[in-house]
């Protein structure tokens, strides 16, 4: 395909419909033949200083003498521009990909090839501590939006040639760049292949967040209540997972990095566990498991006991509870459901209103809705306390918040209809569903069921580093994993 400069400019203007951010700077090189050229960029994606220093100034200053356009292009590539990020190409698709990624493209009249120079310089949020994964001891660094910055944060921690980044483009409209990241000697090649196949199957028009890809990465015909895809905003967490044979997927434009496979027991492991003393980390972990059970079962058990089996409640509590339950207008099941829904509404409102109004919502929620409703006899204090404690407990393992909330509501309704027996049956079905789930062929409930004694040193307890460090368990080595 023979490009002339005018043709390129015309086709670009047509494709971008004369978009105002498409910038084509015409230049004439200092040479005997007055070679015409153009530097093509997208406004706002390039650093103007970098563009001037690495592209425009050297091009204007250099004397190309008697060079033909082809020879001039060679000279630019080898001895004119000081940039280390230069690529030679010759197709229109590549031209579009480069300029929309913040490259400056140099095109010369009468020359087939073009040169892309990396001068990216858009503004982005600086590296800061991720709000969702705050730690007491450990790095205060979290991922940010640009892909390259996130890659560098991982590379800085893993100075290892086995760390592989493989680029893919997803999103038929957005053409979002994603990076598959793994340690060559740790990750199973079949797992990497599976991830690539599933990502290639994604035909979404736009990918603006990691969550868009999560569903495509889940194993087919397994339960969707719990997620087999993990998310982290911390480079240290991602690096730790990579050494266990997991695969990370960095999506351009989002700080949330996907980690796959994800197991149930991982939801109870935190970065701080590995910084604290092992006995304290073990205590915290047990508290996390208890909180999970409390968050799921407490309101349902309260409903079942109050409605069907009051004889199991100690007498001194029963007297107080039954007195207050007798004067409230709603049955206990509806009361618990109502408070649960009000809490969810307040949570959603709290997340979305401006911070300056946050205190007002707290006052309205805590004092007006809560205390006034109890004083007015609409709800009982004991119900409020149980639901509130369950809600707080669900944040101890925050990645499990969505399934915990759904399960809690299902269990409350079941407890209201069938009492403790209903809770038992729903629990049995849920356990079956969780046991049947897999994440990239690895059983989701691995370590617990299928049981792995060796992995138990980092499940309910956190063994000392001497024991943990002696043998790293690769995720593909878990029992009953498909295609080891």
């Amino acid at each position, binding site marked *: 395909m023979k490009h002339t400069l005018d043709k390129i400019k015309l086709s670009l203007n047509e494709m971008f419909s004369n978009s105002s951010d498409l910038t084509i700077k015409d230049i004439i090189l200092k040479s005997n033949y007055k070679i015409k050229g153009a530097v093509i960029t997208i406004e706002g994606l390039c650093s103007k200083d970098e563009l001037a220093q690495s592209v425009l100034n050297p091009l204007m200053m250099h004397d190309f003498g008697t060079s033909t356009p082809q020879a001039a292009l060679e000279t630019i590539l080898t001895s004119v521009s000081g940039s280390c990020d230069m690529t030679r190409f010759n197709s229109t698709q590549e031209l579009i990909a480069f300029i929309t990624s913040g490259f400056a493209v140099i095109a010369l009249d009468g020359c087939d090839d073009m040169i892309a120079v990396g001068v990216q310089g858009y503004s982005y949020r600086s590296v800061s501590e991720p709000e969702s994964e705050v730690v007491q001891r450990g790095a205060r660094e979290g991922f940010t939006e640009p892909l390259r910055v996130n890659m560098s944060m991982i590379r800085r921690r893993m100075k290892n040639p086995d760390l592989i980044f493989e680029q893919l483009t997803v999103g038929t409209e957005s053409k979002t760049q994603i990076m598959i990241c793994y340690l060559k000697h740790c990750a199973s090649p079949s797992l990497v292949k599976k991830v690539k196949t599933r990502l290639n199957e994604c035909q979404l028009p736009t990918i603006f967040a990691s969550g868009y890809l999560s569903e495509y990465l889940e194993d087919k*015909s*397994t339960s969707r209540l719990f997620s087999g895809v993990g998310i982290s905003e911390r480079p240290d967490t991602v690096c730790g997972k990579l050494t266990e044979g997991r695969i990370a997927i960095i999506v351009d434009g989002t700080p949330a990095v996907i980690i796959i496979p994800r197991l149930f027991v991982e939801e109870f492991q935190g970065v701080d566990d590995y910084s604290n003393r092992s006995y304290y980390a073990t205590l915290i972990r047990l508290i996390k498991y208890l909180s999970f059970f409390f968050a799921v079962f407490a309101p349902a058990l309260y409903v079942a006991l109050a409605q*069907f*089996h009051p*004889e*199991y409640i*100690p007498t001194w509590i029963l007297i107080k509870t039954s007195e207050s339950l007798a004067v409230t207008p709603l049955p206990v099941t509806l009361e618990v459901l109502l408070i649960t829904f009000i809490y969810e509404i307040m949570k959603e409102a709290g997340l979305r209103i401006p911070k300056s109004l946050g205190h007002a919502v707290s006052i309205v929620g805590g004092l007006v809705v809560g205390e006034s409703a109890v004083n007015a006899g609409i709800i009982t204090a004991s119900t409020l306390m149980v639901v509130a404690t369950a809600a707080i407990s669900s944040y101890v393992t925050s990645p499990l918040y969505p399934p915990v909330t759904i399960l809690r509501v299902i269990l409350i309704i079941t407890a209201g209809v*069938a*009492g*403790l*027996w209903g809770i*038992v*049956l729903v629990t*049995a*079905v849920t*356990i*079956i*569903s969780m*046991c*049947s789930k*897999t994440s990239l*062929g690895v*059983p989701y*409930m691995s370590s*617990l*069921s*299928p*049981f792995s004694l060796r992995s138990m040193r980092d499940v309910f307890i956190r063994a000392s580093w001497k024991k943990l460090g002696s043998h790293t368990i690769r995720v593909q080595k878990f*029992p*009953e994993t*498909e295609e080891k």
Partner: protein
Amino acid sequence: MQPNIKFSSKRLMLSLMLCSCSVILLQNHNVSPKNSFTVNLLCMLGGLAVSAVMFLPSVILKKTRDTDFLTVSAQSTPKLKIPLAAVYALYFVYAAEYFLLPYTDLFCKKYYPEVSPCVIGLCLLGACVYAAYKGANIISRFGLFLFAFALLTNLLMFGGSITSLDFANDSFALKADWDSALSTVIYFCAPSFIAVIYACLAGETKNFTLKQPLFALFFTALKYALVLFFVSFAVGAYAQRQDYQSFILSRVAHFDGFAGIESLFVALATMSVFMIISLFLSCINKSAQQGRLKNSILFAAIIFAVSFIAEWNNSVKEIFINDYIFIIFTAVVAVLIPLAYIFTGRKAK
């Protein structure tokens, strides 16, 4: 689901052990006061010895050919596939009734009288269809959680009864009434049904050792012995006048102000029956070798229809909860048919 993965034989055996332990949870057989505790214990050991014998054919097949009886029969006599599948399906439907009927009866009589047994049965069977659809591997994974729960419940049940122990002078003497002793032996043969499940599912497991069935039967015996011991000495004469004696044991167990262990007992019984019927449906799926979901729904519907009839017609119910019929039927499908195949196979060689 992971249909093509062989799972640990240990885990299947653990699940079978939990199933066999559930027999005594649903106990509506009165351990006779005419027999001393020692005699009852010997009867129990006799019953479990019979169960061990029933395990032999499937264990031989597993050890020698690393497969299960259903696979062997499908390979050696393809023409008999359908009649054989029908016999096994009939057995599993019968066995499901043998557990479902006492369970709904226990639930409605002792725990929550206001509810209809048919509703309980229907909900339970619905859950079992889902589990059977997921397969025996997944049900055995569920078994590990059930094991943890069973440990906790038993600990509370026995721990809470220790303070009530009262030993009579002649408790350990060999005082026996032979008629009731025989019926006790037959009653304790009931765990032999796990040999039939094993005969169907053994091919899906790996790493089998002879120790596994022995340990399963040993721990079943231990559980039974503990229940017999506490029923005899912690509940005593109060239990003798009532059915579902182990339920009574859980009701009287208490820790100071904390009571209500019968709820945990009912939860354990529910989960055990859930696992047993799910395994039965899985075995039917294996013998029929057809679509799991459709097959499970069909046989769950049959089980429900039969239990519905049994709830209304007492003579039908009597047939389904008859220990003698159950043991004879179990002996036929666990021992006679597999042995016939083993010997025919040897002659053919």
